[in-house]
């Protein structure tokens, strides 16, 4: 996957203060924060990359960018689900809160390399957040790509992220959108089933399809297998991986997956490399 140039000579373990300038609740436990620099500006995260977000006195976690750089703006956009002490503190952060940011780090989705091809974007749960930049990027240059298909799964209808945008995308004439839920839910007239099921129903041309997957690892594995069954090459399937990250810069050793350092050789990794590694238990 493409890797941007080395960041400047600044100390990479030292956070830069950014202020929360808006907070949008997505679901009962997820929010999207907009962060603006108070002084020093970091380079903008490209689709697929992540930043280390620090809450003073609590800790630091790796969160993928969920927005795209806007020309002339320095805002960062991150969607955070409260699953631990730090992410809960980030989730609760009100506008005005000052956080520490380090980054951007990691490999990108490299959307431009899929120019002229059909895009299949498969999101499971909060995996939709790191994929949102792919959708926005494809929409911003819609003619660069052929079909753009989104398959997004969530536990229940209320747990879809970016609900208003999803509804708009579902009506978009140039997007094919399949939303599906895992749990039977009253009041939902849409698809019920695991995300592999609408994915299996797509008629795809394996010669010109690039797939972007993000979600829980078993979900990505099942989806990748489903795509392979359709004849899509492992090299055309990209996953966003996750591991324990403490430094984000390839020095702490926590994020290893076999030979890969997920912070440096990922988070976006091709399935040809990731597939065999993910099938090994406790690797």
């Amino acid at each position, binding site marked *: 996957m493409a890797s941007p140039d*080395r*960041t400047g000579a600044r*100390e*990479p*373990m*030292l*956070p*830069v*203060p950014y202020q929360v300038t808006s907070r949008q609740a997505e679901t009962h436990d997820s929010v999207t924060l907009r962060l603006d620099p*108070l002084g020093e500006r970091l380079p903008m995260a490209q689709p697929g990359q992540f930043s280390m977000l*620090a809450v*003073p*006195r*609590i*800790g*630091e976690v790796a969160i993928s960018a969920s927005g795209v750089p806007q020309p002339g703006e320095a805002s960062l956009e991150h969607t955070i689900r409260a*699953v631990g002490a730090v992410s809960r503190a980030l989730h609760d952060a009100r506008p005005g809160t*000052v956080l*520490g940011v380090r980054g951007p780090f990691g490999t990108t989705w490299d959307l431009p390399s899929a120019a002229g091809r059909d895009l299949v974007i498969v999101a499971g749960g909060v995996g939709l957040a790191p994929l949102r930049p792919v959708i926005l990027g494809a929409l911003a240059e819609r003619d660069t790509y052929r079909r753009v298909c989104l398959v997004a799964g969530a536990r229940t209808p209320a747990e879809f992220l970016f609900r208003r945008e999803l509804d708009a995308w579902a009506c978009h004439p140039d997007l094919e959108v399949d939303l599906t839920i895992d749990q039977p839910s009253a009041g939902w007239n849409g698809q019920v089933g695991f995300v592999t099921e609408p994915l299996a129903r797509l008629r795809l041309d394996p010669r010109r399809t690039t797939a972007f997957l993000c979600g829980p690892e078993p979900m990505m594995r099942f989806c990748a297998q489903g795509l392979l069954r359709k004849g899509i090459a492992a090299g055309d399937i990209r996953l966003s991986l*996750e*591991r*324990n990250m*403490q*430094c984000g*810069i*390839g*020095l*702490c*050793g*926590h994020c*290893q997956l*076999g*030979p890969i*350092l997920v912070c*440096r050789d990922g988070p976006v990794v091709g399935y040809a490399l990731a597939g065999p590694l993910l099938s*090994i*238990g*406790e*690797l």
Partner: protein
Amino acid sequence: MTAPHPAGPVVITRDGLDRLVEALITDGYQVIGPTVRDSAIVLSELDSARALPAGWGVETGPGLYRLHRRDDAAVFAHSAGPGSWKQFLHPPRRQLWSTDADGGYQPAQTPAPRYAFLGVRGCDLAAIRILGRVLGEGAHPDGAFARTRQALFVVAVNCTEPGGVCFCASMGTGPAAGPGYDLALTEQIDESGHWFVAEAGTAEGERILAKVPQRSASVAEKEGAKADVSGAAQRMGRAMPSVDLPALIRESVASPHWEDVASRCLTCANCTMVCPTCFCTSTEEVSDLTGDHAERWQRWASCFELDFSFMHGGSVRQSGASRYRQWFSHKLGTWHEQFGSSGCVGCGRCIAWCPVGIDITEEAARLAGLDPGPDQDRA
């Protein structure tokens, strides 16, 4: 009396070694070298060469490390102490930054030490080179490490007495010290006296060596020193099997061998602490009671820790077998892909300091013996 800078090896006496340490201290270096403490030979700041472990040797074996009195006054005739030079280049605890109520982040004001390492063996010199690649040559180098290493003066020693757990020869890191020293010494001690064949490896090494009384080494002395070192290479107590370890490890991911080791391994993490190339760290947030002042610290971590791979409510590697496999596979296998060399330098510390005596060379041999080969089906 100092001689003008000779080309090639010189001989310095035991007193010359004292002068060498004095010269380094006078020059502003903090001399770190071996010394006896708590029934072991540890690395510590030395205020003179008198603190060296003269006449002390070690008996080492799997799960075994004992000091014993030698019948001579050799100062470098030991190996596999519990500490390695990494504790000075990559400290066990280091503050990264602090923040106060104003929200700004201040980098920690850590002094850049100017160390002179006295007594670095081939294995440990190779380990310093490896740490240099890991911590200093990535896209985001560790600044504190780089500064400390930049200012470092290395007095290497060529080993003439391999320890019971040493296998540097089979790892290509010793017993002769490889490149990267400012000075290299080969200790010679017998009835006729106690002296060192000394050789400079850099201009800075020459500069310091010039302050020590010396004379040119005779051919016999040079050859004698060389012979002692190459003789040591023949007397290693063990060897890493000469197989393609990265390939073997890739093929052995589902081997029953890991459960076998796990039945013995306590996941105590001793091996990672004493290993001179293990570099993993964790970060911690520390704050005072008012909550106004917070600091971020970095501390050594080990892949054997139960929550080392914690994510999403649980650790990826929970079983002891998976954690041992991770350490072994990284050290001898994936390190090559990540950093371009093996992570193991053959110092043997992990063997000596393992409470149950797990021997990494023996485990590699067992794995090779169990390897069904690339044609076999893997379940």
